[in-house]
């Protein structure tokens, strides 16, 4: 089946992405996001619970001449052109709000992070989420529960490719007996539980631990899976 229609999950709203982001503790992360085309700054903001927008300066060279208060993430369009992204749902982009979702371009020529230590930390986090995605790809449906977040996320994969991320109203709160998930979805389900916000440097380890403790649930009633 191409879509997650049989599970009837609603797509993530912007508010839900923000909630997830906050629940993971990532909103505490202080950095400046600068989007520029050549030497012209297109937008500049300091993310956080209340995003702060900077209007000055107008030129990147002027900004670089200023002392750096926070780590900076530069998204650089080629001079005179805006970058084009092929339509393909990416795990990182699906679950994180702007501008954090732009970190999906980490380690590509369009994204630059300074200082190097912050870059390394972000790479560590990105690798942890990549490992999570690979683990999730082993099951058609995956459920992610985050302590403190009043939502349960459902990730739908087909042939190891992420198709959709949504919320399932019937799964909040999670059933006490994990086996019930197999019956709800009628297919193999990966269950991942994250125990709330952790400081950013420890986030990578928390996700690695979550993957290690994840459960794979196989439905008992296999007839349901094939629609009989």
């Amino acid at each position, binding site marked *: 089946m*191409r*879509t997650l*229609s049989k599970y*009837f*999950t*609603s*797509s993530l709203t*912007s508010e839900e*992405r923000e909630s997830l982001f906050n629940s993971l503790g990532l909103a505490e992360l202080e950095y400046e996001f600068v*989007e520029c*085309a050549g030497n*012209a*700054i*297109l*937008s500049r903001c300091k993310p956080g619970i209340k995003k702060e*927008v900077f*209007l*000055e300066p*107008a030129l990147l060279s002027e900004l670089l001449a200023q002392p750096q208060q926070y780590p900076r993430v530069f*998204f650089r*369009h080629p001079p*005179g*052109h*805006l*970058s*084009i*992204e*092929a*339509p393909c*749902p990416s795990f990182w982009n699906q679950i994180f*709000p*702007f*501008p954090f*979702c*732009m970190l999906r371009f980490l380690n590509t020529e369009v994204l630059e992070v300074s200082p190097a230590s912050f870059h390394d930390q972000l790479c560590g986090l990105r690798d942890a989420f990549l490992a999570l995605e690979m683990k999730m790809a082993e099951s058609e449906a995956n459920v992610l529960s985050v302590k403190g977040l009043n939502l349960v996320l459902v990730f739908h994969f087909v042939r190891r490719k992420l198709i*959709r991320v*949504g919320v399932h109203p019937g799964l909040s709160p999670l059933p006490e007996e994990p086996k019930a998930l197999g019956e709800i979805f009628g297919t193999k389900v990966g269950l991942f539980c994250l125990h709330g916000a952790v400081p950013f440097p420890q986030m990578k380890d928390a996700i690695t631990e979550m993957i290690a403790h994840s459960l794979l649930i196989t439905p008992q009633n296999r007839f349901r899976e094939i629609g009989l």
Partner: protein
Amino acid sequence: MKFDYLDEAPSQWGECLAKIRQAGHACIELTVLWGAHEQTRGIRDFTKSSRLRLEKLFKEVQQKGLSLELTLGFPPHNETFPSWLMGEKRQALVPLSLKEGRPQGALLTWIPFLSEENFQEGFLGFLSDVFTFVDLYRFPQGPIKRVLFDFAVYEANVNHFEDADFGRALEERYLSIDRLNANYQTLFKNFQSVASKQGFKVLCDKRPWLAAYDYKWVRNRLLSQFRECIARLERTQAVLDLVEMGGNGNTGTYAGGVIADTTLVERIGNAVLPLAIGGYVTSASIRACRLLEFLHHYAGITSPAPSVQAVLCGRYLSRKDFDSLMETLKTGVELHFPFGLPQYDEHLSCYEWHAARKEAQGLKRMISDKWGKSAIWISDPALQEDDSFFHKLENVRSYLMARH
């Protein structure tokens, strides 16, 4: 109140609608997506899959005493486009944030192109089928009161050259290539050579505002033709009184209290992005974008019934917007041009202005019998986009707030 039937189990539709009714809503907004109903090319499903049974849904809506407003077209959603269209050769290039319905910076992405033969055939067929249901369930016999179209994503397509009619539409505007060459100081041999990414890059480098105006003019014209195509469908005729095609007004005012020329930008809700024709972005459009970002940031500059309005434009302003300003002047409003007065329209004809009289505080005042007690004020000297641009703009804001 929006209701996404694709995200709800069909067995829950009745319960959800009852809750909406109990909450005091009388009307629900429903988006019917082509991509969901035609997952296989040529096979449109409105009855087989339980989640796609439109008739059942319309009956449920009526039973709950609700009325219905349908949206068709291309709103941001996973199932807006059928997947079988994704491999087509010609593609539209649009802001990713508009396609996804959430901020994504100034990134662009590809979507199916609406002038593609398979696209038109499929979408018009889908509309014919939907309009059959609309006719059956139209108010007062049924719940459907209105049908709206969402073409916003195509109103921001920066790759409309893919349309074979682009050159022809540009010719309609200029009539002869010599006129276009005269306006741009170029040496194009025909309109087909202009109607390309490279051709428009040359125009953008020569006169960014005029190139942006011309591109949007042609784009709007071709989209209007597509709307007319829909209106001519046999099935549309039966429900034409319910259908609102929507319009595209990419040039024009920005917000109440401040009138800003938006020719050089794409407006997406409250956000603005630089217009990037064929992906190519000029410094003029980046400046215009940041100027509007400033306006959005300082929303306090606006006022519901301001007696003084700021007009933010460069040397060019469309004749339509200029006429609109002159009408505004007749209502007793004073217009302040911090960047100076516009000099040319889209045909490069000059605007005529009366001599301005110097006043105190670095301002010039201009009056006319036609404007009654209204006047035009010009900063003297006009603001320049130099290093202290934002600082000066802040002064304009303070000045306007004081005048209010």
